[in-house]
Each structure stands twice: as C-alpha cells, then as structure tokens.
C-alpha cells in the first residue's frame, strides 16, 4: 500500500518533470524563432521609412544633404554576385558531376573533405586571398576581386549540392540513355543533369544567397564607391558594405539609410532562400 502510494507520487513527479522539461525545450525553439521575427520586425519598422523611390534610384548624397540612395550599391552587388556566379557555376557543377560519377578513391574523398572544410573557412580569410591575388599585384581595388572571393565562397556549396543532385538521379535513367547508344557526355549533359536540374538550381540559389549578404571579403576587394560604376575593374559600391559604413558612421541620417539598406538586403536574401526551398520541394513532389 505504502509502496504503491510512493510509486504513484514519484510517477506524478516524473510526469510533471517531463512536462516542464518539454515546455522548456519548446521555449528554446520558440525563443530562437522569436529572435528572427524580432530582428525582422525591427528592420522592417526602421527601414520602411527610408525605402522610397529616390532611395532606390539615387546614389548616396554627401553628409548634410538630405536624400540620396543606394541604387549604385544594389547594382554593384548585382554585378559582383553575377560575375561570381558565372565564375563559380561551371567549375562547381563540373566538379560536382565528377564527384558523383567518378567519385571514388583518395582524390575524390579528399576533395569532398576539403570542400566541407573550405565551407567553414571564414570569409575574411577568403577576402585576404582575393586581395593578395587580384588587388595587390595591380595596386587597385576592383569589383572583380570581390567576385573572385565570392566565387571561392560559392564553390563548396555548389559542388556538394550538385554531387548530391546527380547521385539522386536513378541509375536506371542513366543506363537507359547509355543503352540507347548515347555517349557518356551526352547521357550526362542531356539526360542526367536535366533530371537533377531542380536540385542543382537549389544549390546555386543557396550559394548566391550566401554571398549576397557577405560583407567582410568586400572590405578590401570591391572596396565600395559613392558613384555609379559599371566597370568591374574598378572599385564598386556594394549594398552590405554600404550598410556597414553607414551603420558605424556618427550620423543619424546615415543610420536611417543603413536600416533602409538592411531591409532591402534581408528581403532579397530571404526571398532567395525561400526560392531555393521551393525549387527543392517542386522536385520532391514530382
């Protein structure tokens, strides 16, 4: 009798403890999600007043003159990321295909391992690399050197997602194409890659999203500019860089512009991420 009463009480205690613990883990998950919403909320609230047509169409004004915008920075980020994508995509996709189709042995496994490790190298170190290779020899900052740093950052993402995408194409599809007499390159380029296109696109979009918000490697590569600049051989304005410079300036007017820039940047990056997920989902549902 006494024992069962004791057991019942401890059971109750254990259930209460379980419920409390589950609640605490829920609090942690909810707290992390709430932090995102909090930051988003702040950026929208502070940024929305700055974002208007002149902000999106003008170049920065000198301090003291009101108005001015980040149009050149948006364009600069677009150009820099665009060139980086053009540089990284062929190498990334081909290396991913290589790993998926011939990826055995030490070379392949060491490439995989190096890719994983490279993905974790701080972007500022990649920026120093780009500086040493493309800025120091020419004694001239350039958007191109920023693109180069971005391309290096994008490569591991593209390679890993491409490899997984190619691997997920059923072997029967490949064999069917080969059985019809297609050479290997045609099988790959015209059958396997199209079948894996959605997943490869996802990887590309994630890689683009990753570098679009990057600031650190641009500090001493693309450097930034206050003017319209279309020549990738010259220093070029960059949105994340502009936000950074505005934020650490002592002027409230520029702080306001920083929030506006942050709103645009965060919308672009989140949309890219959501697009990437959507691309993946459309593939899995098919």
């Amino acid at each position, binding site marked *: 009798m006494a024992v069962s009463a004791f057991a019942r009480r401890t059971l109750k205690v*254990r259930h209460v403890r379980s419920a409390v613990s*589950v609640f605490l*883990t*829920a609090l*942690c*998950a909810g*707290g*992390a*999600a709430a*932090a*995102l919403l909090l930051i988003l909320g702040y*950026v929208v609230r*502070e940024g929305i007043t700055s974002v208007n047509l002149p902000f999106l169409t003008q170049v920065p004004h000198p301090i003291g003159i009101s108005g001015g915008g980040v149009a050149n920075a948006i364009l600069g980020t677009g150009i820099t990321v665009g060139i980086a994508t053009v540089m990284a995509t*062929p*190498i990334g996709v*081909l*290396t991913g295909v*290589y790993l998926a*189709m*011939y990826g055995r042995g030490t*070379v392949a496994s060491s*490439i995989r*391992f190096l890719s*994983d*490790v*490279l*993905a*974790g*190298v*701080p*972007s*500022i*170190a990649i920026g*120093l*690399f780009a500086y*040493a290779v493309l800025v120091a020899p020419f004694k001239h900052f350039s958007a191109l050197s920023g693109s180069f740093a971005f391309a290096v950052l994008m490569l591991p993402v593209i*390679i890993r997602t491409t490899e997984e995408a190619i*691997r*997920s194409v059923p*072997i029967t599809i*490949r*064999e069917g194409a080969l059985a019809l007499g297609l*050479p*290997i*390159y045609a099988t*790959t380029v015209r059958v396997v890659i199209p079948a894996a296109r959605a997943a490869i696109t996802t990887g590309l979009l994630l890689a683009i*999203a990753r570098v*679009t*918000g990057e*600031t*650190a490697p641009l500090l001493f590569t693309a*450097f930034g500019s206050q003017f319209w600049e279309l020549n990738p051989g010259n220093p070029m304005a960059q949105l*994340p860089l502009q*936000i*950074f410079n505005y*934020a650490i300036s002592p002027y409230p007017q520029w702080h306001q512009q*920083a929030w506006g820039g*942050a709103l645009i940047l*965060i919308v672009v*990056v989140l949309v890219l991420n959501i697009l990437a997920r959507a691309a993946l989902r459309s593939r899995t549902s098919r």
Partner: protein
Amino acid sequence: MGETVVGSERVAPQSLDVFRPRYRAGDRLFSWALNLSTWIYLALILGLFVVLFAGSWLAIKSFGLHFLVDSSWDPVAGRFGALPFIFGTVVSSAIAIVIASVVGIAAAAYLAEFAPPLIARPLAFLIELLAAVPSVVYGLWGLFVLAPLMRTVIGPAIQSKLGWLPLFSGPIYGVGMLTASLILALMIVPTVAAISRDFIESVAVDQREAMLALGATRWETVRRVVLPAARPGIFGACVLAVGRALGETIATTMVIGNRPAISASLFAPGYTLASVIANEFTEATTQIYISTLIGLGLLLFVVSIVVNAAARILMHTVLRNVEER
C-alpha cells in the same frame, strides 16, 4: 553487370566503366573538362593556403611564435602582438557556444521529439532562416538595439546582482564582449539546432520504444537514451558552430567595441582576429603591418580548418555507425 543493377546508386561508376573502351571524342572532351575543373578547384584550395602563408612570411620571420603571446599592439611603433585578438576571439566564441549549445540542442530536441508536426515545420523553417540573415544585419541590430539595451537595462541588472565579480565589473559601454557573444550565440543557434536535429532523428526508433515500454516518460526517453545516442553528432554540430563563431567578422566588428585590450570584465570592449583585419587592413601602410594582418588571417584560416576538420570527422564517424547498424 546483372547483379550491380539493384537500384542502388552507389554502383553507378562501375556500370559506366563498362563503356570506357568505347570513349568517343565528346567523351574525351567531357572527361577532360571534368578533370580540369576539379584540378582548378584543388589548386584554389592549395593556393589559398600558399598565398596566405606567403603574405604573412615577413611577419612570421620577424616575430616568430612569440607573436602569439605578445599583448602589445602599436602599429605606429611597429609593435605587433596577437594575444588581445586571440583572447577576444576565444572568449566571445566560448560564451557564444555555451549559450547556443543549450538553446540549440533543446530546440532540436523539441523539434525532433516533442513538437506536433503542425508546429515543428514552421518553427524549424524560421530557425533555419535565422541562419540566412546576413551578418551585417545582425551587426546593425546589435549596434542599435541590443547594445543600448545592454547599457541601460541588461548590464545594470546583471551588475546590481553580480557586480562584485570581476567578470561583471567596470563601466558598461553597451558594445563589448558580452554583447558580441550574445549576437554570435544567436547567429550560431541555427547551426547547432539544424544539425543536432538530424542526428537526433537518426537515432533508431526501437531504442525509444524500448525505453517507453519500460515506463519512462517522454523527457526521460530523450534525456537518457536519445540524446546520449546522438551525442557525438551533436558534439560535431557544436564544434562546427564554434568554427562559424571564430571566423564571424562583420557582426562582431560592429558590437565588440574594437579595443585591443585584455580585460576581465565582459562589459569591456574587446577585439577579435577577424575584426582587426576588417578594421585595419585598408589602413595598413607599412609592409610589416599588412603582413601581420595577413598573418592573423592565416592563423584564423588554420584554426578554422582544424576545427572544421574535427567536426566533419566526428560527424562522419557517427554517420558511418548509423549506416552500418
């Protein structure tokens, strides 16, 4: 060839090898392109190390290993020591991972084990998006929202209770080591949560069922069976997150205060390896100054490689064990 075609994707290469003798011109070109891009990639990775090493050679030659334990930083007088930056990097990352591992693992456990699917999916989505927020936005938010809050509310509250500890002594500037650590923690929570969740989910169902059949509560099942089984993977996730925190640049630069001093107080401004490169590289005028900053980058690079390699090895061993089971 008959028995290799069982629908398993891993046998793909063998089945293609059959056609190797009949390579056509296009195939030769194609495999040449594949090899070329792979070698370019390998050359890039190797080049990264060589270039950083060559760039910092002057500093390495001048200061040697003493550089790592020297705490003086006076570029005008030509005195360079990395200790304040190493200290700032290690302390801010350490605090960040302590906070982020607790929150991240708890969140992962909730998402994987407790949450109803209707809640788990959107919640997991939001936490993953947290990883996508650009670091400059974290920095902006930290500088204009968290730092003032630290100066006026959080800091004084901590100090009134624990001000007798050297850890929480001195003036509160708002920006400083603690603010930077909190921002870093927030930035790496998604890494810990997402990867831990995968490993928690990979724990075999029958282990959970056995525990529940013995009369354990849901929490006891997770605490005593699921988390211990997933521990190496979760540990790998935390190591990976540390790697991210060590190298994080812009957000830290904006909220850590950027003062090369070693202070016992978490409210005092600090400096990290990545921040000093970000702040001073374009202003560095002398050869030795530039070389020193590249040297700090090399240090960061090597440390991040070691940390990431460790994390990958940890997680690979776990995955192999899971697959073998």
